[in-house]
């Protein structure tokens, strides 16, 4: 018998974990001498109190959807992709090259082209660790970490020595041409009469991210490939027995994962900065881990968790702006979420399981024992 009903597994456990993380975060805020209630209020007004706030919240959420999905699909194959950061950085390079060197007639075509380029670059960056894992058994966690650093060095080199326009001092590409500028929510909602802040960077990539969520749900739960990925993730030996080629599954999964992480760049590089700067990913690759853990690797969960983290991110930025609480508060919250929903999962789960078991035994006691088989 399952120890817990499904609703407890998918809703109760994450909620309790989240609650614990929130309580600890509040304590941290108290400890640095600030008022948690006021902080939360400020975060809510800053992130959700205006279309400007929403615009940033959704902008960040878009990033996190991509990276969260990237980590999730890898989790389904029991692969831990810590390399989202590097893959997204490379995706940015793909976007920059596509936008700078191809004369796109219209943003919509540019979006498709840039998304493909971003996906390809991200996928390529994930494919190497995947290949090494599949063929040489190199632990993918370590190799993807290493690839994050290598990506940082590579991008640094490319921006400083190759893509930096002549005479410019900062290591960044030049601005993308006007034609590839993506419509923001302001542009998209104005025709239907909704006034949305024009300063906020949320843009059409949000729709792409939502589509990616739907696509991934379909891929994982409805297709034969998804079935193979899940099989492999649950039991490698069984997948081998069934004749599902491990090399193919690892490669395909990681390529999809890397492509998703890379595609984040259509949001931050193409949609927001409109040029490639150093460290454009800003840790979103790592936040993807927290998002995937909290969302239980389910696309719907990832969607919700990404919005939550978008809120935290924007709210945290507001806090940093108007109070003396540094932005690092978000990093602490993120750490606590990863800790409680990921590493300390059993701390929440074990007592719950015991409670449900006891409840079930109590329920079944009065009746004469019913043999199950």
């Amino acid at each position, binding site marked *: 018998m399952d120890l817990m009903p499904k609703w407890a597994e998918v809703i109760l456990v994450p909620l309790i974990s989240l609650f614990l993380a929130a309580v600890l975060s509040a304590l941290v805020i108290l400890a640095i001498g600030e008022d948690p209630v006021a902080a939360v209020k400020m975060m809510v007004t800053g992130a959700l109190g205006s279309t400007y706030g929403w615009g940033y919240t959704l902008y960040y959420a878009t990033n996190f959807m991509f990276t969260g999905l990237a980590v999730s699909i890898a989790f389904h194959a029991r692969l831990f992709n810590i390399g989202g950061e590097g893959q997204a950085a490379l995706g940015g390079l793909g976007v920059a090259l596509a936008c700078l060197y191809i004369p796109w007639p219209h943003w919509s075509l540019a979006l498709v082209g840039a998304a493909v380029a971003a996906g390809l670059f991200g996928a390529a960056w994930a494919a190497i660790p995947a290949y090494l894992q599949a063929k040489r058994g190199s632990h993918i966690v370590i190799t993807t970490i290493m690839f994050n650093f290598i990506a940082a060095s590579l991008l640094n080199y490319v921006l400083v020595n190759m893509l930096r326009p002549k005479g410019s001092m900062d290591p960044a590409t030049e601005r993308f041409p006007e034609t590839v500028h993506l419509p923001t929510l302001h542009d998209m909602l104005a025709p239907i009469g909704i006034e949305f802040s024009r300063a906020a960077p949320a843009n059409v990539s949000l729709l792409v991210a939502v589509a990616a969520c739907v696509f991934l749900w379909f891929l994982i739960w*409805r297709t034969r490939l998804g079935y193979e990925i899940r099989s492999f993730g*649950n039991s490698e030996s069984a997948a081998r027995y069934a004749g599902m080629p491990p090399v193919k599954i690892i490669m395909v999964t990681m390529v999809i994962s890397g492509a998703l992480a890379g595609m984040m760049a259509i949001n931050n590089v193409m949609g927001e900065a409109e040029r490639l700067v150093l460290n454009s990913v800003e840790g979103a690759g790592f936040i993807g881990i927290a998002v995937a853990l909290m969302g239980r690797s389910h696309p719907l969960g990832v969607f919700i968790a990404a919005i939550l983290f978008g809120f935290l991110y924007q709210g945290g930025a507001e806090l940093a702006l108007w109070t003396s609480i540094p932005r690092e508060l978000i990093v602490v919250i993120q750490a606590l979420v990863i800790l409680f929903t990921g590493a300390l999962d059993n701390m929440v789960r074990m007592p719950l399981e015991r409670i449900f078991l006891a409840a079930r035994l109590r329920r079944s006691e009065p009746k004469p024992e019913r043999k199950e088989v």
Partner: protein
Amino acid sequence: MTANSAPAIELKGISKAFGPVQANKDISIRVMPGTIHGIIGENGAGKSTLMSILYGFYKADRGEIFIKGKKTQIPDSQAAIAAGIGMVFQHFKLVENFTVLENIILGAEDGRWLKPSIAKARRTLLELAADYGLNVEPDALIQDIGVGMQQRVEILKALYRQADILILDEPTGVLTPAEADQLFRILSRLRAEGKTIILITHKLREIMDTTDTVSVMRRGEMTATVKTSETSPAELAELMVGRKVLLRVDKTPAQPKEVVLDVKDLRVHDDKGVERLKGISLQVRAGEVLGIAGVAGNGQSELLEVLGGYADGTGSVIVNGQPLDLTGKYSDGQSRRARGIAHVPEDRQREGLIMEFSAWENVAFGYHHDPAYRSGILMNNAAIREDTEGKMARFDVRPPDPKLSAKNFSGGNQQKIVLAREIERNPDLLLIGQPTRGVDIGAIEFIHQQIIALRDKGKAVLLVSVELDEIMALSDRIAVMFDGNIMGERLPAHTNEKELGLLMAGITDTDAPHSVAEIEHNLAHAGDGEAK
């Protein structure tokens, strides 16, 4: 040894649950000093759990333990060792890349520094070897010695800690009959010295031959404790399963036809480069069951794996006149299925099923590319579910609920799901490993019937089992494997367990007299040449 001396061990009211599984229910037992006490019971009856509690590996939920009449708390193995208990686990607890000596002193070192401990252990080991004939190479790495030797190391570990109560959990599962005989001689020696021994086994013969008293467990409960001299195998079997047992399979003589599987000079190397199959040849015809007997770990698993498509090999394998791809692109489970080969793997939980998947998802497992189960790149879930309902009904899987996860079925029902999936494909060749491991008597009968029925439909069956009884009952021909070779083939009617046992120990000249030492040497050095 006097009648009124306190029992060496007394357990009172021991209960233990693993989550929802009640592995031990209110168990009480007394074991007198200087005796060999047998415990028998089906798979999953709770024998290992009970002994692990006595050894402090698990903690009981309830109950008391008395050692030599004194109430003793055994919260961990340290306490058990202090109380003079030693245990040889069903699955050995050795550090593979440590030497024998290091394994022996682990946890029983003298003082903080290793050198003197090792030196002392080396001396003691020599003495023990002289006393009991337990010879081992002290500086060999565990990963380089055979299972029989590993078991010796486990026994030596217990003796080194001066255990006077020794628990052995299914010690003979990995031994040849001759090796087992030697083990039992050692146990008799130990008993003669006043040590108390608890012996867990499935094999009624071992119980009858060696024990003084025997306890029977069933479904977590202790059903009886009797003097061995006052009982019979039939009575024990009945106590074990709760009803009369019929250990015979009704079958008509085989009518072999054309050769379906033709294997020639098949070789397999494991990932360390050790040769596991050393060029074996065999044939299976339509309408017959070829049984492969042998001690676990002599290449049977590799044989199934390479035929099933998930290990690479060299040599020639021809199925229905067409060669099989042994290393290339078409050497995988999918291609094998396309060739009419079905495979019930040895370990259903690791290979045959995905425990987290529902029954219907498992029924599609390996056949998810089947046109009936798919639509385009998608899975046709509705069709699979419907098909699963039919299969569950025909194979009497209980409960017949396709949505239930595989982990929530009992072992026997899990095995039935795998069988239904593979047999209903109506394959030309069925590869089947350990078909009834961990399955209760009722289900065993059903499974055996299914295998014979497939044979009678004119299909070829290659059966691998470590249970000699099962091999004898089902096979039309028996091949014995030892150290990656086939030692010989026999017809069931013209052989017996003794002869098969010698073959299983690598001795082909079965008519000549053989010393235990020779057999031992053989087993210890199986696979040596390549290991280094």
